[in-house]
């Protein structure tokens, strides 16, 4: 009997090691420990064993049973591991590229615009928006640009026929012509008319000039303007803002300087230069980056703000120009061609 049990374990060990699937396993399990299995058959022979040998034999049978269970568990684990393994394909080659598209990219003009907006939000500006189709009042009259001013020429500004009508662009007077805004300053006027001071907005957006397209000019381009209206706003505050903007954008070593200039809607007015030697492809010591000034009292009076009470500043710049400076891009047309080899460089 003892030999039979030993042989049973040895045979089970060999057989179970060859099992590949669950059905094979179930069959083997039944053959060994099932109701009609070999171990069960041996246990049934216990009655024939002499009484004095029974305890020893019982112990032996229990050991055999435990041992067989261990072998079965082991076999099942192997089969389960095999089953999981079967779900896998061959090992991946981690060096192969993903066949999926991506990643997407933001346009460099968006990147520059968002960076400027982020810088300005930190000091209390909110981002405003306004129509690209404008009227003469919002684009010129309200900004102290008189009717005979060269900026209003049909030579420089895109106009719409007198029959054109834009359902959601409001006119100040019925006789006004529609046009494509030549600057985002019209948003300042709409914002001031709609709200009340204090006002602190940045208005980025698309603007249009009737101009030849070449490496530095484009028929449509983008501007970003800031307007701040409050009590006791000073020239020094304006300078502080510009110093802050460009130090944030280009690094602490960046300096700005003002040169007196002339704009109809600010007084005094300045052009803003940047110290730019550390920028790519820039050789000059100072480069012009935008225009600014203190909001002219005429503009305030036009929107119904008392110029004796309210003061403010405005600053505007071209986004393409800024992006060209930041990234060292030398042709404005690249922004509008959308060659992927260009777009992917700024992500």
């Amino acid at each position, binding site marked *: 009997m003892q030999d039979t049990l030993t042989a049973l374990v040895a045979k089970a060990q060999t057989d179970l090691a060859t099992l590949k699937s669950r059905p094979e396993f179930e069959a083997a399990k039944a053959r060994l420990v099932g109701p009609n299995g070999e171990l069960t058959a041996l246990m049934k022979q216990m009655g024939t064993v002499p009484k004095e040998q029974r305890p020893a034999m019982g112990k032996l049978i229990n050991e055999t049973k435990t041992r067989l269970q261990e072998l079965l568990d082991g076999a099942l684990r192997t089969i389960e591991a095999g089953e999981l393994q079967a779900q896998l394909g061959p090992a991946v080659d981690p060096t*192969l590229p993903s*066949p*999926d*598209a*991506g990643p*997407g*990219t*933001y346009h460099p*003009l*968006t990147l520059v615009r*968002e960076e400027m907006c982020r810088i300005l939000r930190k*000091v*209390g500006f909110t981002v*405003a*928006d306004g*129509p*690209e*189709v404008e009227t003469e009042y919002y684009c010129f009259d309200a900004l102290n640009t008189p009717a*005979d001013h*060269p900026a209003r020429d*049909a*030579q420089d500004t*895109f*106009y*719409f*026929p007198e029959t*054109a*009508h*834009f359902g*959601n*662009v409001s006119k100040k007077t019925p006789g006004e012509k529609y046009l*494509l805004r030549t600057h985002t300053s019209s948003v300042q006027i709409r914002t001031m008319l709609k*709200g009340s001071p*204090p006002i602190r907005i940045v208005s980025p957006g698309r603007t*249009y000039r*009737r101009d030849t397209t070449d490496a530095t000019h484009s*028929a*449509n381009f983008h501007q970003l303007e800031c307007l701040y209206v409050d009590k*006791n706003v*000073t*020239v*020094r505050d304006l*300078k*502080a803002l510009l110093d*802050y903007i460009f130090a944030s954008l280009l690094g602490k070593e960046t300096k700005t*300087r*003002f*040169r*007196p*200039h002339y704009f109809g809607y600010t*007084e*005094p007015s300045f052009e803003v230069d940047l110290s730019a030697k550390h920028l790519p492809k820039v050789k000059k010591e100072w480069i012009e980056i935008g225009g600014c000034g*203190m909001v002219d*009292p005429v503009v305030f009076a036009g929107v119904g703000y008392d110029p004796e009470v309210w*003061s403010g500043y405005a600053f505007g710049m071209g986004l393409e120009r800024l992006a060209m400076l930041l990234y060292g891009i030398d042709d404005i047309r690249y922004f*509008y*061609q*959308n060659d*992927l080899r260009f*777009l992917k460089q700024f992500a």
Partner: protein
Amino acid sequence: MKISLNWLRDYVALDASTDEISRAITFLGFEVEQVIRTGAPLLSQVVVGEVLVRDKHPNADKLSVCQVDIGPAGGVKTIVCGAQNYQVGDRVPVALPGAVLPGNFVIKLSKIRGQSSDGMMCSAKELGVAEDASGLLILAGRPALGTPINDVLPASDTVFDIEITPNRPDCLSHLGIARELAAWFKLELVYPQEKFRGDIEGAPHPELLRGVSVLSPEDCPLYSAHIIKGVKIGPSPEWLQRRLSAVGLRPINNVVDVGNYVMLETGQPLHAFDARKLGGNQIIVRRATDGEKLVTLDGKERTLTSRMLVIADAEKPVVIAGIMGGENSGVSADTTDLVLECAIFKRQTIRWTSKRLSLTSDSCYRYERGVDPHSALEAAYRAVDLILETAGGTVVGPACQVGGDVPWKREIVVTHDYICEKLGFDIPAAEMSAALESLELNIVREEATESRGPAWTVAIPSWRDDLDRPIDLVEEVLRLHGTDKIPAAVVSSPGLIGDDDPVVLFNQRVTDYLVGHDFHECVNYTLRSAKEISTWVSQTAAVELALANPFVDDQSHLRPTLTMGLLESLKLNQSRGVAVSRLCETGRVFMERNGQNFECAAVGFIIADPVGERSWLKREPADFYTVKKHVAALAAAAGIDLGRQPLVPVSGPYYGWQEGQSAAAGEMAHGWTARFGLLSLAMAKSLGIEGKVYGGVFAILPERITAETTRRRYADFSLLPAALRDLALVVDAGVHADEVKKTLAKITRAAVGNAFTLESVETFDVYQGKGLPEGKKSLAFSLVFRSIDRTLTDDEVNAVFQKIQNEVTQSTTWQIRK
């Protein structure tokens, strides 16, 4: 405007360096576009010499040994020379030992390849006169031997090319710029002193000019004419020619040159007539008659209109007022008697005429910007002086002046405190008043105030019409203080005042979404061509969206959709061999409805077959349902739930969508529209695009974009197991799945009642073909039931499911597919 430094020095003793002067001009508010150096620098020990002998250098092929006679300056010298462009007998500049040429190049006695040389013959570049370094500067006119070279060459000058802002017409003159620089450098400004002061000695000569009449005084507030008899026309003296040449004007004759000179000096344009050519000896300032013609000095015939002002004689127009004279009345070589015009014309009239005729001139440029009527006569006197000096003659009567009698007086009261408050920093009162005075903004009264500084009453000179408010004086003070000295400060930032505009937030959300889904953001032009819009959008749009004055033909219309631009970008990449699939853009589009255009915020994207892109592993291509998902997400960003909107198939090629393969939702009447699906194969083909292109656009009125305003409320959900039933229905092939689903959901909800809930109904299979009748399709729906408080039993769910099937059989035309 070109400004000569030598010329400026007539009025102000500038001894600052060119760089310092450039900087001063810049910080006074004028852009220096270019600094040009002309003429020769001061050169000692450089004299005129003549080449007597030219022999080949014994030890060098390219060198010559010359004998050069420098006359009284030292006789004949031996000079080794490498130039090739001269001959024996030429007179050339000779630099003698001790001379210092530009670049600190000191001339010494030297030996060149064993041959001693007593100096150097020079090229124009070596002398710093011009850029020509190709050979020796051969001196024309055989100047005397030994003459110091500076007596032969034009004197050195520095010319600043300055952009004058439109508010400062007074600076379109050397005197104007001199005045600014005198103020900056704290120097005295010396005005030219005219000898002629308007007094006429000779008797009246009505045979030269009987009189002036101004028929249109609103266009011509001042007209003066001086008659000069017995002039001799000839070349101007050299100093005058040199001045004009330095600033880019070609000398013509003494009278014309004086006119130009005085204009560049004072800013006042002048015009001289040949008195003989004035028909009827009259000057009449009048509007032209429509169709009247005049051949201007540039030889072109101009047709005039009645809005244009002319100077005419008794018979004909002779000058387009303020812009250009006629060929019929100008000064010529045989002119002996002059009429000198000095006038003021209305800016708007000049500007309109100039634009209309596409004709401009230095005179026109100044009149358009504004010429000071109150100093005009000074310029006339100055011109009379210079004509008498350079062309002779005498001033005779009658004296003719019409208008010019409105006196000038303007005063501005400003306080020291006001200026400091506007600046945000302090400048001492003494510095402020000195700055104002230096610009001839004379303080006529200074009064103490209750605050720190005084109040000033400032007299504004007539040429500073741009100053009429206290704020204007703030700028003047700051200009002279120096805008580079504005002290630094920190930005005071009192937190956000408002919210970003909804359009801004929308653009940001949709761009983030699309870039996050692997799209490349593009930026395309807003203006498109008429042909494209009439072909792919509509004839109406091609009319309504047109500009009045396009600049180029292919940019004549506002874009009604973003797809055109995106396809163009796709095409560009394909044609450059750059594999591209996903492109997107945000921006304004313009939609026409009932004869009105609406400016909309829009977002669009395309997914193209990645032509040219080869991959080791194939992916499922995008299809209609891919773009549907994206459009729904974009609409959601604007607060529109596309799932609750009726979708209609696109019919016709409107906006370039493929019929039967694309859908539309929304309409401009509701303030938004969406279109998505396959882009017209014909359109893609016409653009030369390879492969299929799917896409989507969503446009919405800016005012229609809603920010999330209502806070979402949490809804309880069941933690108990669900019961699932599938139901397949055979319906007409043309019926939309959503329609069936909605009805089925309604039937199901009615069958469930309040017993438990229908959690969802989803379409999970669509089948058409074998096993089904022609024209039918099978739609399979999965129904999920659940209860909040108990596990559902099979029996109760089966009972409901049976009820649903009964209802479907009874109330619909659908068949249940077993």
